[in-house]
């Protein structure tokens, strides 16, 4: 559709240009005797909404197979099982940092189910063993639970309820998604890990360490790592294939 639009506008522009050349203005003598100034044709503004929408679509990270020498048949079979599960049970799109409420089956609870609300702090695992960790602070006690996405014990995953009076902020498709710029302060050292080192790549935490300590921590940075070609894993083709597969299967 976008290509057709481009063609039409190109043809139109060509027509405009040529009419400009052979039109009256070329032959007409203007009032002050000079040839009229050449007006370049207006640039075509192509608003391609469809491709923009396709870029935004979410593919759950556990579908992308890890880099390795295993037979892709194994991942294909796993994906089939994952799609089967997704047909029966809705797994919403969520990221690290989203607040979720999970209901699991529990034989020992009074009404046989348990509900836990928390913020997602980690998403790991590939294939059917994909997990996510929810964290919450209950009665001054921090609790983290690691749930398996495809476990049959999970009865529902939903976004935790927000205030009823909150209205969704309308956003244009091409605008950037707003990111929370809150910076968290750390407790005094000692820490369980040296979080100021660049290996952990922490964003969103304000380390109140003196300058020379932060500089000393940068000694352990490995700036060559992002250019290491052996570590490159281009998932664009794999992702496109998996997207097509998913849209076919889930569309049925």
């Amino acid at each position, binding site marked *: 559709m976008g290509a057709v639009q481009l063609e039409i506008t190109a043809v139109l522009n060509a027509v405009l240009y040529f009419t400009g050349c052979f039109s009256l203005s070329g032959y007409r003598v203007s009032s002050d005797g000079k040839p009229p100034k050449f007006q370049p044709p207006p640039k075509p503004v192509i608003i391609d909404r469809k491709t923009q929408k396709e870029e935004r679509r979410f593919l759950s990270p556990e579908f992308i197979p890890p880099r390795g020498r295993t037979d892709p048949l194994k991942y294909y079979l796993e994906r089939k099982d994952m799609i089967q599960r997704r047909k029966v049970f809705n797994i919403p799109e969520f990221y690290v940092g989203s607040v979720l409420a999970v209901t*699991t089956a*529990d034989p*020992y*609870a009074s009404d046989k189910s*348990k509900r*836990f609300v928390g913020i997602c702090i980690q998403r790991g695992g590939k294939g059917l063993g994909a*997990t996510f960790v929810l964290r919450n602070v*209950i*009665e*001054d*006690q*921090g*609790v*983290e*639970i*690691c*749930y*398996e996405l495809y*476990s049959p*014990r999970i009865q529902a995953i939903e976004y935790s309820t927000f205030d009823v009076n909150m209205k969704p902020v309308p956003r244009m498709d091409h605008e950037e998604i707003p990111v929370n710029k809150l910076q968290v302060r750390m*407790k*005094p*050292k*000692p*820490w*369980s890990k040296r979080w100021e080192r660049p290996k952990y790549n922490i964003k969103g935490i304000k380390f*109140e*360490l003196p300058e020379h300590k932060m500089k000393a921590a940068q000694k352990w940075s490995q700036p060559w790592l992002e250019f290491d070609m052996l570590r490159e894993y281009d998932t664009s083709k794999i992702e496109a294939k998996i997207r097509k597969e998913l849209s076919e299967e889930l569309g049925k």
Partner: protein
Amino acid sequence: MLGFFGVGYQMALLNRRFGLSLTHLSNAVIQRQFSITGACQAIQKLTRVRVVDNSALGNTPYHRPPKCIHVYNKTGVGKVGDKILLAIKGEKKKALIVGHKMPGPTMTPRFDSNNVVLIEDNGNPIGTRIKTPISCTLRRREGEFSKVLAIARNFV
């Protein structure tokens, strides 16, 4: 990892003893240098634990935190539902582990501190209420821990 928890615990103890809030001190960057052994994360001998019930023995401040001195287990490592021997305020007391920092099997909760409930030799809890959330896996052993589960309020 235990030291990280220990700093907060010591501050809490100080607060209780002097009845003042020393939060203005905690705002400044205090670099405490003390060595900690690597965390084993589950509960074994000499781990400092946190007593979560409302018993007098568990809640009165003392200059030393309660420490585990024996785990009643074939391996010396205690997980949720194991009985341990605690040294509190110069006396020995049995206790039940209700949650630890070590990540357990998936779908089970992982707490930010090693929680413990004081218990008599016959299994009766000393306190009367447990406010902090307790792992649901304890419910499986309803027979042994029925009295502890009865005084617990939140299950996670």
